[in-house]
């Protein structure tokens, strides 16, 4: 299941969907808004997506994970809009009969999501400044 939402992510619902009889392990990964990056203090993050393409890319990631690992269930949910400190911007849930596959799949899903899915974050800082995060952008 993949989903983009402007509301807080309901992790209980995701865990319930993954907790099926065939599963012996459920892994939940949450990416949450961190206060400090080095000396910069963050107030909140804003997420923007190219929504139809992001949904396609997420669905492709889910399908690929199910091909690579024998997953019982897999969910990827990304929140858009403003995400305050300590709240989750992304949730990945993978369940499998045994734990190695669920851990590996969840790790691969978040790493690949961060490389490929057209979603961007803007950091709002305590100084009043805001900036888009574009990793690898050529600085001039």
């Amino acid at each position, binding site marked *: 299941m993949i989903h983009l939402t402007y509301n807080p992510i309901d992790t209980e619902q995701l865990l319930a969907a993954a907790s099926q009889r065939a599963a012996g392990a459920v892994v939940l990964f949450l*990416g949450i808004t961190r206060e400090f990056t080095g000396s910069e203090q963050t107030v909140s993050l804003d*997420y*923007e*997506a*190219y929504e*139809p*393409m*992001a949904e*396609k890319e997420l669905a492709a990631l889910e399908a690929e994970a199910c091909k690579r690992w024998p997953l019982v269930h897999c969910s990827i949910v*990304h929140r858009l809009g403003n995400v305050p400190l300590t709240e989750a*911007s*992304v949730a990945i849930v993978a369940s499998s009969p045994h734990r190695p596959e669920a851990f590996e799949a969840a790790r691969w899903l*978040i790493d690949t*999501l*961060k*490389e*490929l*899915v*057209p*979603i*961007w*974050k*803007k950091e709002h800082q305590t100084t009043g400044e805001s900036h*888009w*995060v*574009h*990793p*690898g*952008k*050529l*600085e*001039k």
Partner: protein
Amino acid sequence: MIIRVKLFAQARELVGVDELEVQLPEGATVAELRAALLEAAPVLESLLGSSFIAVEQQYASDETVLQANAEVALIPPVSGG
């Protein structure tokens, strides 16, 4: 042909609009689109080289040939998660 390019994140803020129109010859490639984008919005210079172009919601290479009415987007380096 006219190609409309969707802009996101810093690209959208730098240009000040969420869609740019550029005029290209029939059969133009993504590489030609990049040059036309830079001409239409020089402010994109710092971002364009590290951005991808998506055509019909898929990452495209510079050799991809554009069709009139294609859905095209400029994808700056992503930072989801």
